[in-house]
C-alpha cells in the first residue's frame, strides 16, 4: 500500500530523511517512534505530499508521488490525516467540519453526508456535540471530531501525527479508544506516537527513527522486550520511565 525506496529529504542543509526504506501493507498498523526532531512528522507528511521528497521513490496506493502528473488532490482525499493540534475549522460547526469535504469533494448530498456524519459522531461518542463549535470542545473531543472528519472521506489510509500529545492525560484514553477501534476494523494506519501501550496492544510493527534514519523495525513485543539498537534502548527507558 505504501512503499518507500531510498527516500531522502533535506531542509536546506539538514538531512531530515536519510535513506528511508519501508513497506506498509494494506490493513497494517504501523507505529513510528523516536526522539524529538528525528524526522517522524516529516516521514508521515511525505505520504500525502505535505512535504515533497528530494530523492528516491515513494509509492502510495499505486501512485508514484514523484510523478508530476499524479493527481495529488485525488490521492489526499483517500488519505486521512490527524494532526497533533487537531486543526478543526473554527468557523464551522462540528457537523460542517465533518461534512464539508464529503459534500464538496465527494459530491455527496447534504443529507447523505449528514447522516454519515451522525454515524461517525456516534462512533466517536459525540452525537450531542453536532452543533457545537470547535472552541466549545475539550481537546480530547476536538481530536475525536478530527478523526471523524478524516473518516468521513472513507479513506484507505489513516495517518496520525502524535494525536494525543497535545492532550491532558485524562483525555488521552478516549482518543486511543477510538484509534484502537479503528485499527481493529482493518484500517491501514501509520501512527506517530509515544503511547507505548497503544503500540504493544494494536500495532503490527514498530519503527524507531533517529536523525532521519530508521534504526529499528520490529514487531512490538520484540521491540519492547529486546530493542537491538542502543539509541532505541535509551529512548524506551525515557518514555517508559514513571517520571515521564
Amino acid at each position, binding site marked *: 500500500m505504501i512503499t518507500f525506496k531510498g527516500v531522502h529529504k533535506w531542509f536546506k542543509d539538514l538531512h531530515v530523511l536519510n535513506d528511508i526504506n519501508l513497506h506498509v501493507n494494506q490493513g497494517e498498523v504501523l507505529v513510528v517512534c523516536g526522539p524529538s526532531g528525528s524526522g517522524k512528522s516529516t516521514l508521515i507528511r511525505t505520504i*500525502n505530499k*505535505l512535504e515533497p521528497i528530494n530523492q528516491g521513490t515513494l509509492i502510495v496506493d499505486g501512485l508514484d508521488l514523484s510523478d508530476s502528473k499524479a493527481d495529488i*488532490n*485525488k*490521492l*489526499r*482525499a*483517500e*488519505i*486521512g*490525516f490527524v*494532526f497533533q*493540534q487537531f*486543526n*478543526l*475549522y*473554527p*468557523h464551522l*460547526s462540528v457537523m460542517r467540519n465533518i461534512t*464539508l*469535504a464529503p459534500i*464538496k*469533494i465527494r459530491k455527496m448530498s447534504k443529507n447523505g453526508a449528514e447522516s454519515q456524519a451522525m454515524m461517525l459522531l456516534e462512533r466517536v461518542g459525540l452525537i450531542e456535540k453536532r452543533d457545537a*463549535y470547535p*472552541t*466549545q470542545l475539550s481537546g480530547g473531543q476536538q481530536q475525536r471530531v478530527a478523526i471523524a*472528519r*478524516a473518516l468521513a*472521506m472513507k479513506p484507505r489510509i489513516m495517518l496520525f501525527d502524535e494525536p494525543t500529545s497535545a492532550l491532558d492525560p485524562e483525555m488521552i484514553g478516549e482518543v486511543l479508544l477510538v484509534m484502537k477501534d479503528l485499527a481493529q476494523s482493518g484500517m491501514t494506519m501509520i501512527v506517530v506516537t509515544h503511547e507505548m501501550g497503544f503500540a504493544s496492544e494494536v500495532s503490527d510493527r514498530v519503527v524507531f527513527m533517529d536523525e532521519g534514519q530508521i534504526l529499528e523495525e520490529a514487531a512490538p513485543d520484540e521491540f519492547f522486550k529486546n530493542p537491538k539498537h542502543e539509541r532505541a534502548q535509551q529512548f524506551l527507558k525515557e518514555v517508559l520511565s514513571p517520571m515521564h
Partner: protein
Amino acid sequence: MLKYQFDWSVVTSGKYFEWLLSGLSTTIQLSLVSVVLSFLLGLLIAVMRMSSIKPVRWFAHGYLEFFRNTPLLVQIFFWYFGSYKILPTVINDWLNRTNFEFGAAVIALTIYTSAFIAEDIRSGVRSIPKEQLEAARSSGFSYIRSMQYIILPQAVRITIPPLINQFLNLTKNSSLAMTIGVMELTYQARQVESYTFKGFEAFTAATLVYVVLSIAITIMVTYYDKIVLSPMKAR
C-alpha cells in the same frame, strides 16, 4: 460685517430638500455597488497576490502599488476621460446606455478601494495558522478551494474592523464623483448652494447625512460581525 440669515427651511422641505434627497439616494447607490464590487475584486486580488504562480503574483503586486499610490481624483478622471480608449466595447456600450458618469465613478471607486481591501484581507489570511491550510489540503481541497471554504471565511471575519474602515472611506470618497458630474449628495449640496446662497445650511445637512451614513455602516457591519463571529469566539 455682513449679517447671515440662517434659513434651515431650504434643506428640510421643498424642492431643494428633494435635490438633497436624490443626492443621498445616488450616494447610497454608488457606495453600495462599489462596496460589493470592491470587496469581491479585493478578494480576488488578495488571492492572486498570494498565488504560487509568479506572474500572477507580480501582476497583483503591481496592481496594488499602482492603485494605492495614485490619487483617487486622478483615477476618477482617468476612467471618465480615458475609459473609451482602453475598456472593451461591451463595457463602454453598457456605460453609455446606463449612466456614464455613474459607471466611471463605480469603476474608479471599486478599483481604488479594492487595492486597500486586498491588503487588509491578505494580512487577515496571514494571521490564520498555516495548519488550517494543511488540514484543508490534506482533505483533498485544491489551493483555491481551501481558500474559498476554509481560509478566506476566517480571514474575512478577522478583517471586519479594517473592512468597516474601507467601507467608510469609500462612502466618503464617493463625494469626489461630483467632479465628473455624478449627482450625488455633495453635488446636490453644491447645487442648492448656488441656487439659494444657503451654503452653510446645505453643507451642514450634507455633513450630517454623511455622519449618519457612517454610523449606519458601522452598526450594520458590527451587527453582522457579532452574529457570525460569536460562535468562533465562544468557549
